[in-house]
């Protein structure tokens, strides 16, 4: 029997040579290389790019994309998608502003209300997905339309000023020189990286994305995980909305337009497969940095803002193309 075992096990170790060991990280390594290259090029070409202020600015903008991106990574790993982020952030910024002013909930009350509602609308979308099998593209498209409409309807598209409050000053400001929103992003990154890799919940997400039917038969509570996934992105969008309101000093129904595309782009550039089952938070982190640096660089280089969209489109497709090709090389072909 040993001989047979040997003959069969034979090819496998061969496959795990250099490529095998780094294969699953190849995409992340590539992305890191691309970011380094960007820094070199932009540092040379765009004056002020390397300044501390600008780098902190990059970080702060990264936070707007990043916080939601951690949650969306898990949603996409589980084989679903969430396209409601932009309007959800705008609506949350309106909620917190209205809560703290018109509805007299106090600052803390308004923040709590916003986070709870964010969790709630996410859970609702997740429940429709999990319980009734409504595709998540549709449930979150519905959310996109409803929240975006409500945010503008409730404010008449006017900014809702926040009250003066040390809490908002802190949230919109800096702590030890680093923007608070960036700190929140980093802390949440640590939380999610841990969640994804070291908890039953996180592992379930990967199992569900890899094969939901198998996960269900193995006794995982697929419905609960799915509801939680969308509830989490709702919560993260709400957090982003609160931070955005604090930064802008007001809640804005039209803010964060198109953010969902940046978030999804960051996630897939980071190597998470839209088909589910594969992806990492580190990859998403690099994707967020990549997108933020490029956006910053294009502005500093004085590129026409419309043309920036053109460049961005090409970059997204190119990055995913590279990912797909790398993945095909390094993992078994048995999965199409």
């Amino acid at each position, binding site marked *: 029997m040993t001989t047979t075992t040997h003959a069969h096990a034979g090819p496998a170790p061969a496959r795990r040579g250099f490529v095998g060991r780094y294969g699953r990280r190849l995409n992340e390594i590539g992305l890191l290389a691309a970011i380094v290259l960007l820094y070199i090029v932009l540092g040379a070409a*765009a*004056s*002020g790019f390397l*300044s501390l*202020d*600008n780098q902190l*600015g990059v970080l*702060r*903008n990264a936070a*707007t994309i990043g916080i939601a991106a951690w949650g969306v990574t898990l949603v996409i790993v589980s084989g679903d998608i969430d396209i409601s982020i932009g309007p959800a952030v705008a609506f949350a910024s309106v909620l917190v502003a209205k809560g703290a002013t018109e509805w007299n909930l106090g600052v803390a009350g308004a923040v709590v209300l916003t986070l709870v509602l964010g969790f709630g609308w996410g859970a609702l979308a997740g429940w429709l997905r999990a319980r009734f099998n409504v595709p998540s593209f549709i449930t979150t498209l519905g959310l996109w339309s409803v929240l975006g409409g409500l945010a*503008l309807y409730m404010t*008449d*598209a*006017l*900014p809702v*000023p926040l009250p003066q409050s040390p809490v908002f000053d802190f949230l*919109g*400001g800096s702590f030890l020189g680093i923007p608070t929103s960036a700190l929140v992003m980093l802390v949440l990154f640590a939380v999610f990286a841990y969640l994804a890799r070291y908890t039953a919940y996180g592992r379930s997400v990967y199992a569900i994305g890899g094969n939901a039917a198998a996960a269900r038969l193995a006794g995982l509570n697929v419905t609960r995980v799915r509801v939680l996934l969308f509830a989490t992105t709702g919560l993260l969008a709400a957090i982003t909305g609160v931070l*955005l309101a604090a*930064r*802008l*000093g*007001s809640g*804005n*129904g*039209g*803010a*964060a*337009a198109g953010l969902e595309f940046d978030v999804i782009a960051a996630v897939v550039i980071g190597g998470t497969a839209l088909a589910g089952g594969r992806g990492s938070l580190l990859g998403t982190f690099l994707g967020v940095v990549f997108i933020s640096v490029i956006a*910053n660089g294009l*502005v*500093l280089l004085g590129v026409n*803002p419309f043309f920036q969209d053109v460049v961005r489109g090409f970059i997204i497709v190119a990055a995913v193309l590279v990912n797909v090709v790398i993945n095909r090389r390094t993992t078994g072909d048995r999965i199409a």
Partner: protein
Amino acid sequence: GGRLGENGRVGVVYMDAQGFYAGVRDGMRDHSQSSGDGLQLLELNAQGDASEESSFVDVASSADVDALVLSPVSATASIPAVRLAHESGVPVVCYNTCIEDEAARKYVTSYILGDPHEFGHLLGDAAADHFESEGVTDPKIAVLNCEFVEVCVNRREGFENALFDRLPDAEIVANQQGSTIDEAVRVGERVLTAHPDLDAFYGEAGGATMGAVRTVKTSGRTGDVVVFGSDMSTDAARALDDHTILKADVDISGLAVGRMAGETVEDILAGEGSGEFITDAPIDLYTTPEDGARWLEEHPDGIP
């Protein structure tokens, strides 16, 4: 009966999602209430999209609105829609923006105009006043624009005319898109980084203005960089009141325009073609803290 719109209706087009248009709507409502005409408002927010506008005008014309009050998205692209309304016998009232002059004379009954060139000009003058009083002769100014709509280009031209007239050494060092507050903040920060010696921002629209104010405040450049802005809101009024960053703000009151539009429609329905094609909408320049405080008093609900 009780079918909606039986007592007559007016189609209203708002060009995009700015607070100004909330003022227009409230102004029209006000007028309608005080005159008791019971007109139903059919509304569209075109979000800057000429095709949306065109579909809406179709709908409104075939639904036999008594008048169409619109701020066309484009001077050229909106012509067919306006012509269609005109040809369906619907009187058209432009406000804020209008179609090209020649076409407007043919198809538009009345135009409530807050001249964008004048609008920019007033602010440019105020900016020049400010710099002259500070003794700066070569201010470096960055524009946060909304130039995907044509009026914003006109606003800037007006601004530049006034400014360069008086301070020929002034310089526009950057002109980037930033019409919503979050976009304006993002772009504003980068502009500050790229131009550390910047003296002022010019915000072409409400979001751009408040974004610039916010940028200056959060990057600790208060007192160093000032802002000249457009469009009033509660936020802007407060900033003006504070007067450390926002030095002047120019505005056309949506409420006033709405009321004027209501009157115009009433006149048209009554068959009293008002003599003048163009009615000037008042352009208000706010330059002092007192101006800001007064605005807040006069607009308790924040509708401009």
